[in-house]
């Protein structure tokens, strides 16, 4: 492996592990908690976000020399909103049941701070290839995070995984897990696990609350 491939791989893994948008930077919480009542919903939401994040960042990166600095945020938002509208229609075309399950949260991808954050912090300063890799890494990290939440909540809250019953008929589901409080608890538990791992590795402590501002 030559140096540049290793670097790219590092860049990609950055989004999945060291800078995981959900577990480390604690961004994009709203969709992360609202739609993760089942593994399928979580995965679909992750893929929809991946599409919007990647397309928006690529476009921003291509147009980065053209976009006037003074109105860049407005431009980014318009670009993001465009791709969200596209994904909204795509999901309607693929499956109405899925569209109903995700509800207004598809359109709320617009205000997912990960996307605006990536466009502003990375895509606006870098050429196409690094932007693409970074965006894909971040998306993968976010999708994995959503999946981790959705899987735990579905297994505990409904006793199923991708709709397949895991336990016998005697299993009494923990309904609270698929209710709003369960979302907070499961994400909190994941954060605790990550914090514990980070401490054991004796790395620098996990992000302080101030880092999770957006």
């Amino acid at each position: 492996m030559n140096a540049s491939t290793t670097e790219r791989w590092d860049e990609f893994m950055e989004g999945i592990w060291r800078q995981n948008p959900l577990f480390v930077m604690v961004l994009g919480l709203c969709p992360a908690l609202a739609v993760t009542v089942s593994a399928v919903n979580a995965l679909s939401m992750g893929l929809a976000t991946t599409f919007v994040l990647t397309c928006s960042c690529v476009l921003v990166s291509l147009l980065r020399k053209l976009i006037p600095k003074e109105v860049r945020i407005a431009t980014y938002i318009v670009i993001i909103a465009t791709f969200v509208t596209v994904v909204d229609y795509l999901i309607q075309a693929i499956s109405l049941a899925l569209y109903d399950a995700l509800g207004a949260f598809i359109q709320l991808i617009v205000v997912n701070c990960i996307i605006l954050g990536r466009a502003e912090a990375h895509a606006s300063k870098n050429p196409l290839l690094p932007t693409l890799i970074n965006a894909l890494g971040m998306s993968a990290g976010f999708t994995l995070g959503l999946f981790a939440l959705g899987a735990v909540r579905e297994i505990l809250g409904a006793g199923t995984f991708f709709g397949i019953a895991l336990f016998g008929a005697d299993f009494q589901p923990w309904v609270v897990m698929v209710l709003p409080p369960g979302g907070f608890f499961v994400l909190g538990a994941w954060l605790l696990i990550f914090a514990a791992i980070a401490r054991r590795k004796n790395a620098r402590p996990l992000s302080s609350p101030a880092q999770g501002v957006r």
Partner: protein
Amino acid sequence: MTSAVIPPQTTSAVAMIRTLGLIAALCGFIIVSAYQGTYDAVRENKRIAVERAVFKVIPTARSIVEYVASPAGEIVKVGAGGTAAVSGAVKFYAGYDKDNKLAGIAVEGVAKGYSDNVRILFAYDPAAQTVSGFGVVTSRETPGIGDKILVDKNFLANFPLEAKLTADLKKLANAIVTVKHGSKTNPWEIDAITGATITSRAVGRAINDAAQLLLPRIVPHLSALKEKP
């Protein structure tokens, strides 16, 4: 290093508007192509979803005709020659059986449930003047609690539910109400599920609101709906 200070770069207003216009045009183009590209698939999906829901609540139906009932009491078939939207018009579906006879009328109803609106589709049986059953279109009710409305045997035993109109056909003779579990005494009352009272009440209210609004408009024209057009 020279001491010359580089003035902060500013973009002229014209250039800014030009670039923004360009980007807006690009975005508009992307949106419109996505809208056009998925239009047919989305419509087809919606049609299939409606069909499936109607066939579920009217099991003997083999085909569906969509109508709207205007506030003036007129009934117009939807889709034939581009009907103009009448304000206050309400949509309903007439289901026809294999001999093209009216099997039932499916009406959508909506009411506030536990966590969001519960949208249901219920079947009205014109011959018996009852609500013969219902299905859920969208609901975000608590899994394992609110969704009992579809499986709870006692709750499903509420149907058929009486939905007779008064003699002048202006409103329901008896408003459909949800009552506490175990206190149902009349055929127009819905016996709630213990522990899911809010969702049960939402079903009752959704049926009552839609029936009060729509049945007085439909029933006078029933003879016109008897055969598939």
